[in-house]
C-alpha cells in the first residue's frame, strides 16, 4: 500500500485515525501495530510471516545480549542478530544479482549456468533491515536499553509510516516515544499539514514531471537531442527529489500525528556546494546510518589518508548497492565515492574559493549527471544519455508540448533552490517551524484540506502511481 493510493487515503487512513484516537492511550501502540501489520500484509502477503518471524528472533537475541554480562556471548548474540538481518537482505535482495553474475563468469569459462528460481524482493526490506541493525548495535553499545515488550519492538520495526521507504529511524531516537508519548493536538495538526505537503510534492510535482520523463526516456536515447536529454535528466532530478522527499514528509507527518518525531530525511539537497554536503542533506538518515554503522567502524577519519579515501569509497559503493542489486547502482555509488575522495583531496578547497553559487551549480551538475546512471538500468544506455547531454545537438524538436510539465518543472526548480536566497529561508522557517496563531491555524488548515482534496482529484484524474523508491 502506498500513501498516494486511494486505498490508503480514503480507506486505511480514516479507519486507522478513528480507531487510534478513539482508543485509550495505553491501547494505541497495539492499534498502531495491528494496523501496521495489516498495512504490510496488504502489500506483501507472502512476506509478512518472514518479517514477523525475523522480528521475534531479533527481539530475543537482543534481549539475551542485554541480559548477559559475558562479552563473548554479547558478541555472539549481536553477531547472530546482525547476520540474520543482513542474511535475509543478502538473500532476498542480492541472490538474483549474484547468480546472474556468477552465470556470466561460468559462461565465460564454457561451464553450465547455475539454475536458480528467481527470488522476489520483500517490500521495504532495505529499510527495516537497517532499523534492526541500529537496534542491535545501539543496545550492544549501551546507547539505549532494549524494549521490554515484544510488541513495542515490533512496532519500532513495523510502524507503517516509515516501514516501506524510511526515514531510517535509529532505535535510540525513537525508543522513548514508543514507550510513552504525549498527545499534542497542535503537533497532530502540524503532522497533517506535513503529510499534505508531502502528498502535494508527490502528486502535483513528481508524478506530473515523471509521466513526461518516462515518455522521453522510453525514446531512442542514441538520437536524442541535447535539449531533450537535459530536460529528461533535469526532470528526473526533480521527480526523484520531490517523490522521495514527499514520501519522507508524509511519513514524518503521519508520525507527528501520533506524537512521534522521526528524523528529517532531506534538507534542500540541491543547494549543496559539494557532493559531501549533498550527502549530508540527501537521504540524511541513510547517510547517518552509513556513517555510524559502517564508516566509523571501518576507521572513519581516524586513519591514514589513503585508508580514509578507501573507507569513503567503500561506503559509497555499498550505498549504491543498497539502492538496488545491479551494476548501475554500484557504478553510481562509485561515481559519488570518487567525487567525495576528490573533494577531500583538494577539490573542496577549490569550491570554497569559487564561492557558494558556482559551487552549487557545479555540484548540481555532478549530481544530475549521476542520476542518469541511477535512472537507466542498462549502463551503456546511461552512458549514451550522458553523451547526448554533451553532444550539443539542438536540431531536433523536444517531443513534449505540455505547458503543465514545463511550469511544474520550473516550480520544482524554484522550490528546490528556494533556500539559497534569504526570503526562501524565511518562508521555510514560517511553513515548518512557526507556532501558528488560532487564526493562522484555521487558514493553514483550510489550505491544507483544499490541497488534500485537490491531490485526490489529481490522483484520480491521472491514474494510480506507485512511488519510485519502492523498488529499493
Amino acid at each position, binding site marked *: *500500500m502506498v500513501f498516494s*493510493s*486511494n*486505498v490508503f487515503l*480514503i*480507506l486505511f*487512513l*480514516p*479507519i486507522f*485515525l*478513528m480507531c487510534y*484516537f478513539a482508543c485509550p492511550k495505553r491501547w494505541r501502540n497495539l492499534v498502531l501495530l495491528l494496523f501496521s501489520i495489516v498495512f504490510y500484509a*496488504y*502489500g506483501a*502477503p*507472502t512476506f509478512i510471516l518472514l518479517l514477523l518471524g525475523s522480528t521475534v528472533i531479533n527481539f530475543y537475541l537482543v534481549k539475551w545480549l542485554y541480559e548477559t554480562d559475558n562479552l563473548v556471548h554479547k558478541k555472539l548474540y549481536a553477531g547472530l542478530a546482525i547476520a540474520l538481518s543482513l542474511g535475509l537482505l543478502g538473500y532476498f535482495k542480492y541472490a538474483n544479482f549474484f547468480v546472474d553474475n556468477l552465470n556470466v563468469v561460468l559462461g565465460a569459462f564454457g561451464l553450465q549456468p547455475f539454475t536458480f528460481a528467481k527470488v522476489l524482493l520483500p517490500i521495504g526490506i532495505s529499510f527495516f533491515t537497517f532499523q534492526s541493525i541500529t537496534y542491535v548495535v545501539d543496545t550492544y553499545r549501551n546507547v539505549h536499553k532494549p524494549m521490554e515488550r515484544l510488541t513495542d519492538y515490533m512496532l519500532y520495526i513495523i510502524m507503517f509510516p516509515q516501514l516501506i521507504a524510511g526515514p531510517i529511524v535509529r532505535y535510540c531516537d525513537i525508543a522513548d516515544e514508543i514507550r510513552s508519548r504525549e498527545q499534542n*493536538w*497542535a503537533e*497532530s*495538526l502540524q503532522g*497533517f499539514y506535513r503529510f499534505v505537503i508531502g502528498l502535494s510534492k508527490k502528486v502535483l510535482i513528481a508524478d506530473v514531471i515523471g509521466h513526461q520523463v518516462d515518455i522521453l526516456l522510453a525514446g531512442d536515447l542514441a538520437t536524442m537531442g541535447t535539449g531533450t536529454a537535459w530536460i529528461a535528466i533535469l526532470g528526473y532530478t526533480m521527480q526523484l527529489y520531490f517523490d522521495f522527499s514527499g514520501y519522507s514528509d508524509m511519513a514524518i507527518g503521519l508520525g507527528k500525528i501520533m506524537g512521534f518525531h522521526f528524523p528529517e530525511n532531506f534538507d534542500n539537497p540541491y543547494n549543496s556546494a559539494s557532493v559531501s554536503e549533498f550527502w549530508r542533506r540527501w537521504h540524511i538518515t541513510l547517510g547517518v546510518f552509513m556513517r555510524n554503522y559502517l564508516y566509523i567502524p571501518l576507521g572513519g577519519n581516524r586513519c591514514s589518508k589513503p585508508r580514509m579515501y578507501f573507507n569513503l569509497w567503500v561506503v559509497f559503493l555499498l550505498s549504491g548497492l543498497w539502492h538496488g542489486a545491479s551494476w548501475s547502482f554500484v557504478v553510481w555509488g562509485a561515481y559519488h565515492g570518487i567525487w567525495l575522495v576528490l573533494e577531500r583531496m583538494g577539490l573542496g578547497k577549490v569550491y570554497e574559493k569559487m564561492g557558494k553559487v558556482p559551487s552549487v551549480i557545479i555540484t548540481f551538475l555532478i549530481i544530475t549527471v549521476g542520476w542518469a546512471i541511477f535512472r537507466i538500468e542498462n549502463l551503456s544506455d546511461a552512458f549514451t544519455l550522458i553523451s547526448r547531454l554533451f553532444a550539443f545537438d539542438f536540431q531536433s*524538436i523536444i*517531443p513534449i*508540448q*505540455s*505547458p*503543465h510539465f514545463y*511550469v511544474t518543472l520550473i516550480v520544482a526548480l524554484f522550490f528546490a533552490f528556494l533556500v539559497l536566497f534569504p526570503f526562501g529561508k524565511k518562508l521555510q522557517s514560517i511553513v515548518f517551524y512557526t507556532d501558528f496563531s*488560532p487564526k493562522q*491555524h*484555521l487558514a493553514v*488548515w483550510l489550505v491544507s*484540506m483544499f490541497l488534500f*482534496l*485537490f491531490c*485526490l*482529484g*489529481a*490522483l*484520480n*484524474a*491521472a*491514474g*494510480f502511481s506507485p512511488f519510485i523508491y519502492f523498488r529499493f
Partner: protein
Amino acid sequence: MKKNIHKILFVSTIVVLVLLLVQTFTNFVYVKPLAGVTVEVEKPKLTLPNYIDGSFQSNLENYCREHCGFREWFIRLYNQYLWNCFHESNNPTVMRGKDNWLYEEVYVRDHYESLMYKYTQDTAEMRNFYETEALRLWKVQALLEELNIHIFVNINPGKDVICPEYLPKNKLYLHPEGLRAYDYLIKRFDELGINYIDNVPIFKAIKNSVDYPLFYQTGTHWSNIAAVHVFDSILRYMENLSGQQLYHLEIGEKYQAKPRKPDQDLEELLNLAFPMKSSPYWYADVTVKEDSTAVKPFLLTIGDSYFWNFAYNVPLQDLFRGHPYWYYNYIVYYDSANTSTLDLDLEQELMRADYIMLNYGTTSLYEFASRFLSRALLYLCYDKASIDAAVHGLIENIKSDPKRYAEIKKNAENDREDLNQALYNIALYLIKENPEIYFEDLQGEKMPISRNKDLPSLRKALSSR
C-alpha cells in the same frame, strides 16, 4: 474555542476523511457523474488466492479510484486547474485549438498526417485496402441495383476540414506524406461510377456565406442546421437514384438556444467544473412537408457518429418506413436496439432495405464501410446451401483441434446448449465476421461471379410489407 482550535481542526480532519470514506461506499450525496465512457468496476471479493496473487489489492485500488467519495468534484476541480492554468485538456481525446475551439484528437491527427498510421505505416497496404473496398462497393452496388435496392455513400466533412484555422499547431504529427482515404476513395468512386454525395466542396464553398455555424466550437460534429440541410439534399439524391417521390423537409427559421446533445460533447468530455464561454448555438426546427404522393421507403444506414445529428434533428420516422442505424457496422440503433450486427440475419436485413447509406465523415473514412461490404457480398453471392457447406467445413476444422473442441463442448454444457447447435452457431458467426477468410472469391480485389438465387423472391416478399 481558541483554546481548543487545534483539537477542533484535527477532529475536523478526521471527520472529512470519514465523510469521504462513507461517500465512497454509500453515495449518500448525489454527485453529477462525469461525462465519458467508463468501465464499471465491481467491488472485489476477498479470497485467499486473489489476496496472495495481489489481484484483490489491485482491484480494490481500481474500485476505490472509480468510487472515491466526491471524486467527480475533485476531478472537475483538477481539470479546471489544468484548463485555466495550462490550457491543457486532461482528456487525451480532446484537443484545445485556437480561441478555445475544441477538436477530437483523431481529427487533428488526420489533418496533419493520415489516420492510415493507426493501421499501418505502409502506404501500399492502405491503398490495397481502399481499392478493395471501392471495388467491393462497386460490385455490391451493381448486385443491389438488380434487386432495386440503392446503395450510396454520403461523405461529410470533418471539423478539421472546414475549420482548419482554429486547429492546434502541428508539432508532433510528422507524417504529412500519408495516404488519405478521402483523396483516394473520391477518385475511385468517380472512376467506378459509384453513387456518392461529397459534402466537402459544398461546405467549403458556403462556409463564409451562410449566417449559421457549420460546426460548433465545443462539439465534434456538424451543427444542427448544417446536418438538416445535408439531409434534405440526401432525400433529393435518393429520389434521383430511384425515381421515387419521397417526403421533403421544411426547415424553419434559425434561432439561438442552449446547446443540445451532442453539440457540446467535447466540452462535456473535458469534465470541467465551470462551463466554457463559447459562440452561440443556432438551431432550426424541421418538419416534414405534407405530400399525398410521397412514399416512405426503408433506409438502412451504416456509418459513424455523424448520423446522430440526423437522428436528433430530422423526424426520420415520418420519412421512412424503417431507418435502422448500424453504428460502425457494430451495434444496431433504431431497430432491435443494441443488438450486435453479427447477430442479425444479414440476408433479410439487406432485402428489406430500399436504400443503404454509407454515411462517413472524412476522418472515419480510413475504416470505410466497417467490413459491411464483404459481409454483404457473402449474402449477395452465395446462397444458404453454399454458406452451410462452408459452415460444416469449418465445424470439421474445429473438431480437428481437440483443445478448441473441448472448450466449446465445455461451454455448451455450461450453457445447456446442444453441442451441434453450438458448433454451428460458432462456425456461422466466424464466417459472418470475416467471410473473405472462408470464401476465396471475396479476398482482396477478387470478385465472385456467383449469385444468391434466393434473393429476388425474398426481396419481393420483404419489400411489399
